[in-house]
């Protein structure tokens, strides 16, 4: 027993969960971590010790950003996946190495505990049936996407077989490399059925060599005068779109630090008066979620926990926001649906203001501008 090494989990793993490298060596050893063939970290030790590698790997992963208007049904999404190699060599010349595939994202602690030694990728993302997508939408049997929240769904192409998408007896083959990560472009699939077969599927099937893997249903969105869209990075390392409806209230969140003031001497009256600099305010939007069902609740909680949330289409801009829901409470035993308020605090604070129509003058064609046409825009 001169060099014993283990790495858990093995083969495929999430960089958002612990990746433990345990080493037992009788002489000084060096371990190296390569991410996509680039040396990312070197460490050394002697005796029995362990170290966690997830942060080293996670720093080299970037969340893929596939778009609905992509012309492909399967959009390659390689940035959220890295091939890694760990090698260990001690002074006695003994050598150990392993390779694994790391994915952005992670599972909850409850799931990690219940998984034990089994691998979530084998059980779910590479399973032959069930919800194979990196999404919290739907259940294990089907995926539901609200029609206003359609965005490409990340998944790993099955290791064997060919995927197809089928509706009403018509189908398209989805060709991809086994084990590679792709995003399924639902918008493009619906448009293809519309163009080629004169139908607009509200529910279609994903099949592997003809056998049903999972059904994807498009659920109706409620009518609403006000609608806000949030794009957020989910727990599973995929960007998702979330719709918020209901009236929004604008406000400003002032930073806690008091605005500094200073005294200025006024010659005219021979005394001091108080003066201050410009006050920077942080815009805030309070939005009601509208009706949230029990299935959707976890999706909202994931958004509240996300580190990267963007408000889309607010005055034609994309704005980074920090969401919070200070008084978030909901009935433990859910029946029907519930609504709660979410505060979206803008990440930029500003002490200068510009008139609203300045973006139109900067060339963004809208109504009442020279670019206005008779088409609705």
């Amino acid at each position, binding site marked *: 027993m001169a060099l014993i090494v283990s790495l858990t989990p093995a083969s495929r793993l999430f960089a958002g969960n612990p990746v433990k490298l345990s080493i037992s060596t009788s002489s000084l050893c060096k371990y190296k971590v390569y991410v996509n063939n680039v040396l990312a970290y070197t460490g050394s030790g002697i005796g029995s010790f362990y170290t966690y590698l997830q942060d080293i790997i996670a720093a080299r992963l970037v969340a893929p950003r596939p778009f609905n208007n992509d012309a492909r049904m399967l959009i390659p999404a390689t940035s959220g996946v890295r091939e890694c190699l760990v090698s260990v060599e001690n002074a006695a010349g003994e050598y150990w190495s392993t390779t694994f595939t790391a994915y952005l994202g992670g599972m909850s602690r409850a799931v990690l505990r219940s998984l034990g030694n089994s691998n979530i990728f084998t059980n779910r993302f590479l399973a032959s049936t069930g919800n194979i997508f990196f999404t919290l939408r739907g259940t294990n049997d*089907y995926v*539901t996407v609200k*029609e*206003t929240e359609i965005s490409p769904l990340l998944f790993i192409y099955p290791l064997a077989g060919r995927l197809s998408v089928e*509706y*009403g007896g018509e189908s398209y083959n989805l060709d991809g490399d086994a084990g590679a990560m792709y995003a399924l472009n639902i918008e493009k699939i*619906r*448009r293809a059925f*519309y163009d080629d077969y*004169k*139908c*607009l*599927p*509200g*529910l279609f099937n994903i099949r592997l060599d003809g056998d049903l893997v999972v*059904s994807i*249903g*498009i*659920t*109706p*969105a*409620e*009518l609403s005068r006000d609608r806000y869209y949030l794009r957020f990075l989910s727990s599973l390392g995929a960007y998702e779109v979330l719709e918020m409806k209901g009236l929004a209230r604008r406000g400003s969140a002032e930073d806690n630090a008091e605005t500094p003031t200073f005294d200025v001497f006024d010659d005219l009256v021979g005394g001091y008066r108080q003066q201050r600099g410009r006050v920077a305010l942080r815009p805030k939007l309070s939005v009601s979620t509208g009706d949230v069902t029990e299935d959707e609740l976890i999706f909202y909680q994931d958004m509240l926990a996300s580190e990267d949330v963007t408000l889309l289409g607010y005055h034609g801009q994309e704005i980074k926001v920090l969401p919070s829901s200070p008084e978030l409470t909901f009935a433990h035993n859910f029946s029907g649906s519930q609504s709660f308020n979410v505060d979206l605090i803008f990440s930029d604070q500003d002490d200068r203001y510009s008139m609203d129509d300045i973006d139109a003058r900067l060339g963004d064609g809208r109504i009442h501008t020279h670019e206005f046409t008779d088409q609705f825009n």
Partner: protein
Amino acid sequence: MAKATAYYGHAPSNDELDEFYRLLTMPSMERDVLLEASTVTVSENQHFAIPSVVWP
């Protein structure tokens, strides 16, 4: 496309087909009116999905 033809009163152009697609995919009253006038197919597990629209 019979339904789109009926909607526009003539064989629709590509722009009008784009418009028709936009109407079918928008969450509004207009879409529901269109659905009423269309052949709606019901699939398995349809209870959680919006109806699929098929026209002759």
